[in-house]
C-alpha cells in the first residue's frame, strides 16, 4: 500500500473528529498568538524602565498584569488543547482497533490458518500503538508549528520585507534536507518493521512451545537462534534510528545558516543606513522563533513516517478480503432441521493437491454419521465444509434441500453443536465459558449442563467454583477442558451435532457416562461423529470410511464388515487382538 493511500484511508478515520480538530486548530491559534505576544509585552515593560527615577511604574504594572492574565489563559488553553488532541488520537486508535477486530471475525479461516497469530496480534496491538504516537505528535505539534511560522513571518515582513523574503526563500532548504533524509531512511524503517515482525513471530512460536523446548533441553539453542534474529533486528533498528535522527541536527544547521545570513544582510544594510540595530535584534529573535518549528516539523515527519508504515500494516489486516458475504436474500432454515445432502462435492486447501473429490452423501434427519479412517485422512476437512469454515470448490452441500451458501452462516452454524479435539476456552469464568453459546442462560441451566457433561464435580472443587477465572494457562487438564467444552454444547442443545474426537482426553469411565448423555442428546438429531470408540462407530446409521481424502467405503457396520474391506481391517486392528 502506498503512503498516499494509507494517509487517504486514515483521513477517513479522522472524519468523525472534525469538530474536535477544528477546535484544536482554534486553540492552537490562541496559544500561539499569546505566546508570541508575551515577548512583545515584556519588551514594552522593559522600555518603561529608562533608568534611575525614570521608571514609569504605572505602565510597568499595567503590562505586568496583562502578562499574568495572558499566561494563565495560555496555560489553560494549552491544557484543553492537549486533552482534545489526546481524545482525537485515541478515538482514531480505538476505531482502528475495533475495525481490525471486527475484521478478524469475518476473515476466512484460510487466512487465519495460514497467517502467524503473533504477526496479526502485533499489527492490532503494537503497530497501532506506534501509529498513535506518531499521530499524537503530529496533531500536537504541526498546528502550532504552522501558526508560529505564519505569526513570526508577519512580524518579520512588517520590520523589513527584503530580509524577510530572504528568510522565506532560504528556510524551505531544511524541508528539502528533511525530505531527503526521510526518503533515504524509508527503506531502513521498512526493514526494521519487517525484522521486528519476524522476531515477534518467532517469539510467539517459542513461547507457545516453551515447555517442549524445555523438555528437550534446547533453551540455549533456541536462544541462540533468537539471538541471530535479534542481532539483525538491532542492526536494522540502529540504522533506522541513527539515520533518521540526523534530520534534526541537519535542519538545525540549515537554520543557523539562515540566522547567519539574516545577520549578514541586516548588518550590511545597517552599515549602509537601512535597518536600525534595535530592529535587527528583534528581527533576529523572530528569525530564530521562525525556524524553530521547522525542526519540530522535521522531527514529526520522521515519526509520522514510521506511523504510516505501522498504520499500513494494520490496514492490511482491515482490508484483507473477508469471507464471501452472506447472500443478501438469504433463505432461513428453522431449528427443526436435520437433512444434509452433499452432491458431487470437491474441495482442496491447496489447489495443486486434490483432496476431496466428487463426494456424495445423503443424511436423513436423526441419523448418526460416523467418520472413520486413518489419522490425517481428511475427516476434519469434512467438518470444515459442513460448518462452512471453508467453502466447497465444486458441487453443493444442502441443508433441508437448500444450498448452504444460500443461508447466512449464522443461520447455518446455530444449528450445529460442535466439540473439537482441540479444546479452546476463552479467558473468563467457568460460568461464562459454559454459557458461551447462550449468554443469557440462568445459573440453574448452567449447572444442569455441567452436570450432564460430568464437569460439575471438578468445577465444584475449583477455588471459586463456577466463578473461577480460567483461560490459556488455567491449570486445567486437557480432559477437564474438554468436559467444559462439552458442557458448553449441552447448554445450547442444538438440532445437529458435530463431535470431532470430542472425548479423546477424557478417561473412559467418565467418557461412558458422557456418551450416554450424548446418546440422549442425539436422539432424533442428526450427528456427525469422528471417533475411535468402536461402540460409537458400530451404532452409527452411516459409517463413512475415509482414506487419503476420499470416501472409500460407505454403509453401516454390518454391511461394511460383510464387505471385508478397509473398514474391517481398521475395526479388527481396533479390537486389539494380540
Amino acid at each position: 500500500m502506498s503512503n498516499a493511500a494509507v494517509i487517504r484511508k486514515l483521513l477517513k478515520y479522522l472524519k468523525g473528529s472534525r469538530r474536535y480538530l477544528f477546535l484544536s486548530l482554534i486553540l492552537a491559534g490562541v496559544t500561539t498568538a499569546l505566546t508570541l505576544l508575551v515577548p512583545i509585552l515584556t519588551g514594552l515593560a522593559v522600555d518603561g524602565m529608562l533608568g534611575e527615577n525614570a521608571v514609569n511604574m504605572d505602565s510597568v504594572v499595567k503590562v505586568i498584569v496583562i502578562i499574568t492574565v495572558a499566561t494563565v489563559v495560555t496555560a489553560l488553553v494549552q491544557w484543553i488543547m492537549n486533552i482534545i488532541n489526546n481524545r482525537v488520537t485515541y478515538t482514531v486508535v480505538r476505531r482502528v482497533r475495533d475495525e481490525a477486530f471486527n475484521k478478524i471475525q469475518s476473515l476466512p479461516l484460510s487466512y487465519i490458518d495460514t497467517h502467524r497469530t503473533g504477526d496479526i496480534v502485533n499489527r492490532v496491538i503494537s503497530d497501532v500503538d506506534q501509529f498513535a504516537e506518531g499521530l499524537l505528535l503530529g496533531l500536537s505539534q504541526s498546528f502550532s508549528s504552522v501558526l508560529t511560522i505564519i505569526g513570526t513571518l508577519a512580524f518579520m515582513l512588517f520590520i523589513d520585507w527584503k530580509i524577510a523574503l530572504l528568510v522565506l526563500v532560504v528556510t524551505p532548504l531544511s524541508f528539502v534536507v528533511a525530505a531527503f533524509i526521510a526518503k533515504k531512511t524509508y527503506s531502513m524503517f521498512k526493514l526494521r518493521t519487517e525484522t521486528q515482525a519476524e522476531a515477534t513471530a518467532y517469539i510467539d512460536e517459542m513461547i507457545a512451545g516453551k515447555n517442549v523446548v524445555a523438555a528437550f533441553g534446547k533453551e540455549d539453542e533456541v536462544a541462540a537462534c533468537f539471538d541471530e534474529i535479534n542481532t539483525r533486528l538491532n542492526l536494522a533498528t540502529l540504522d533506522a534510528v541513527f539515520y533518521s535522527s540526523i534530520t534534526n541536527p541537519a535542519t538545525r544547521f540549515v537554520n543557523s545558516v539562515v540566522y547567519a545570513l539574516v545577520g549578514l544582510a541586516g548588518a550590511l544594510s545597517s552599515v549602509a543606513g537601512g535597518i536600525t540595530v534595535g530592529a535587527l535584534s528583534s528581527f533576529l529573535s523572530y528569525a530564530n522563533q521562525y525556524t524553530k518549528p521547522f525542526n519540530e516539523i522535521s522531527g514529526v515527519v520522521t515519526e509520522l513516517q514510521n506511523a504510516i508504515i505501522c498504520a499500513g500494516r494494520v490496514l492490511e489486516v482491515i482490508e484483507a478480503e473477508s469471507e464471501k458475504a452472506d447472500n443478501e436474500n438469504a433463505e432461513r432454515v428453522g431449528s427443526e432441521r436435520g437433512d444434509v445432502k452433499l452432491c458431487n462435492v470437491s474441495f482442496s486447501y491447496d489447489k495443486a493437491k486434490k483432496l476431496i473429490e466428487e463426494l456424495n452423501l445423503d443424511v436423513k434427519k436423526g441419523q448418526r454419521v460416523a467418520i472413520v479412517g486413518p489419522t490425517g485422512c481428511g475427516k476434519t476437512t469434512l467438518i470444515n465444509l459442513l460448518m462452512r469454515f471453508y467453502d466447497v470448490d465444486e458441487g453443493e452441500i444442502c441443508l433441508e434441500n437448500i444450498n448452504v451458501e444460500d443461508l447466512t452462516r449464522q443461520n447455518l452454524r446455530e444449528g450445529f453443536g460442535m466439540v473439537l479435539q482441540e479444546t479452546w476456552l476463552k479467558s473468563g469464568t467457568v460460568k461464562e465459558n459454559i454459557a458461551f453459546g447462550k449468554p443469557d442462560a440462568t445459573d440453574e441451566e448452567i449447572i444442569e449442563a455441567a452436570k450432564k457433561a460430568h464437569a460439575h464435580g471438578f468445577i465444584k472443587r475449583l477455588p471459586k467454583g463456577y466463578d473461577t477465572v480460567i483461560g490459556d494457562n488455567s491449570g486445567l487438564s486437557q480432559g477437564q477442558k474438554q468436559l467444559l467444552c462439552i458442557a458448553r454444547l449441552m447448554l445450547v442443545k442444538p438440532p445437529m451435532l458435530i463431535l470431532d474426537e470430542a472425548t479423546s482426553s477424557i478417561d473412559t469411565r467418565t467418557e461412558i457416562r458422557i456418551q450416554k448423555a450424548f446418546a440422549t442428546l442425539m436422539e432424533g438429531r442428526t450427528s456427525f461423529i469422528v471417533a475411535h470408540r468402536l461402540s460409537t462407530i458400530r451404532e452409527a446409521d452411516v459409517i463413512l470410511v475415509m482414506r487419503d481424502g476420499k470416501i472409500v467405503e460407505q454403509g453401516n457396520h454390518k454391511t461394511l464388515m460383510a464387505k471385508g474391506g478397509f473398514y474391517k481391517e481398521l475395526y479388527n486392528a481396533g479390537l486389539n487382538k494380540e
Partner: protein
Amino acid sequence: MKKLFVYLKNYKKECVLGPAFKLLEALFELFVPLVMASVIDKGINGGNTAHIWQMIGVMVLLGVIGLVCSITAQYFCAVAAVGFSGKIRTKLFAHIGRLSFKNSDNIGQATLIARLTSDINQLQNGVNLVLRLFLRSPFIVFGAAIMAFTVDVKAALVFLFTIPLLALIVFAIILGGAPLYKKVQSKLDAILNITRENLTGARVIRAFTAEKAEIARFEENNRQLMARALFAGKITALMNPATYVVVNLSIVYILYTGAINVNMGTLSQGEVVALVNYMSQILIELVKLANLIITVTKAVACGNRISDVLDIKDGMETEKSDDTSDAMVEFRNVSLCYSGGENSLSDISFKVKKGQSVGVIGVTGSGKSSLINLIPRFYDATEGAVLVDGRNVKSYTLSEIRSKVSVVPQKAQLFKGTIRSNVAFGNSDATDEEIMEAIRIAQAEDVVNAKGGLDSEVGQMGKNLSGGQRQRLTIARAIAKKADILILDDSASALDYKTDYNLRKSIAEIKDATVFIVSQRASSVMNCDMIITLEDGAVAGIGTHKELLESCPVYEEIYYSQYERGDFNE
C-alpha cells in the same frame, strides 16, 4: 527498573560520549549570541564591513562544529539505546525460556510476548531520548541560572525559588503518571489477549456464532483502554502549562522588582533584559523536556514490567543429594502440591528397572501428568524424592536430566522449519537413517510421504499438519532423541486404534529404553510390564494387567468400562 541499567554496562563509553557531545553542541550554541553582539558592536557601530563578514564566517563555522558534534552524539546515543534494548531482549528471551512451568503458567503467554516486543521498544525509545536530552536540559537550566547570578546576585535569587519548583512539578508528573500508564498497559494486555484468543479460537467462536459477543467484549475493553489512556494523558498534559505559568510568573516578578530597582538605580535596563532572557531560555528547555515526559514515563513503566519478569527466581537450583537407588526410576514417598491448594500427588512410591515399560492409567485429574512431569523435573516434588538412574533428580543440572528423559507432551507442538528439523530437534547429530527410523517407529512414514520428504516445510506451530500428523511427528521427535527414558503423556489421543496399536508394538521394540505410557485407554497400557493405577493423586494399585484385574477395583472398573460391550474378544 534500576536493575536493568546493568545492561548499559557495555555502553559506558557511548553513554558518556553521547551526552557529552550533546553538551558540546549546546555550548557552541551559547556562543552565537556573543558573536552576534560583536557584529553589532564592532561591525555595525564601528562601520567595519570586513569584521561583519569575518564574524558571520565564524557563525557558520560554529554551525558546522555544532552539526558534527550533534551527529556524533546521535550516533552514540543510538548505539547505546539500541544495544541496551537488544541485550535486554536477548536476556529476557533466554530468561523466559528458563522459567519453570509453574511460573510461566502464572504469567501467561500473551503477557510474555508483550514484554518481549512492545515493552522493550518503548524502553529503547525512552533510553535514547534520555541520553540525548535529559542531560542537556538540566545543563541549560543550571547554566542559565549561573549566568543570571553573574548578572546580579540579588535579582537572580528568584531562580533559586523557580528551579526547585519546576523540578517538583516535573517529578510529580513523572511519578504520578507512571502508575496510570501501568493501568493503561494492563488494559492493553487484556485486548491483546482477546485478539489472540479470537485468532486461536476462531472455529469455536464461529460455531457458536459468538462473533458479536466477542466483538462486544473487545469493544468494551477497548473503550476502557481509551478512557484510561485519556485520563493518564490529562495528567501528563499538565506539564507544559504548569511550567509555563511558573516561568512567566517569575518573569513578571523579575520585571516588577526590576522596575523598582532600576528606579532606585541599583539595576540597569540591559540587566533586566538579560535576566528575562535567561528565564525564557529555561522555559524553552522545559518545553522540550515536557515532550519527553510521556515517552519517559511510559518507558519507566515498561522497564518495571520487564524487571518484574526478570526478577522471577525459579528455585530450580541443582542441589547436592546422597540418595542412591538401583532402579532406573524410583519414587520415594513423593507428594506434589501446585501453588497452594490440595495435593495433586500424595505419597507415591514405586521402582522401575531399566528397559521396563510402565503404564500409567487413571481418570481425568487423577494425577497422571503430574506424576510423569516430576521425572524430567518440570516441577519439583513438594515432599519425598524422585530418583533417576540412581540419583536424585535435584542433583542433576536441568540439561543433564532433560537429556536423559524424552517426553511426548499431550499437546502436539511443532515448530516452523522442516520435518527433518523438527524430528531432529532433540538430536541435531541424527543421520537421515536415524531420523527415518524414528519416523517409522512413530508410524509417521505416510506423513513424510504425503508432505514430500524430510525437507518438506512445517508451518509455524505445525499449522499445515493435522492433529494426528502433528502427534506422530512429536512422537518421532522424542524417539529420535534416544534418551534413556521415553515418556508418552497421553500422546496417542488423536491416533486411531490401528495406528495406536502399531505404534505401541514398534515402541516395544526399542532396545534398552525405559518407557512410560500415560493413557486413558486400558488397551494402551495393558501390555506394559508394570501398570500404575492412580486415583485422586494416590496409587490405587501397581502390577501387571492380570494382577491388577484381580486386586485393583479401580483398574478393573476402568478396564471393564472400556470393554463392557464386549468389543474385546478374549
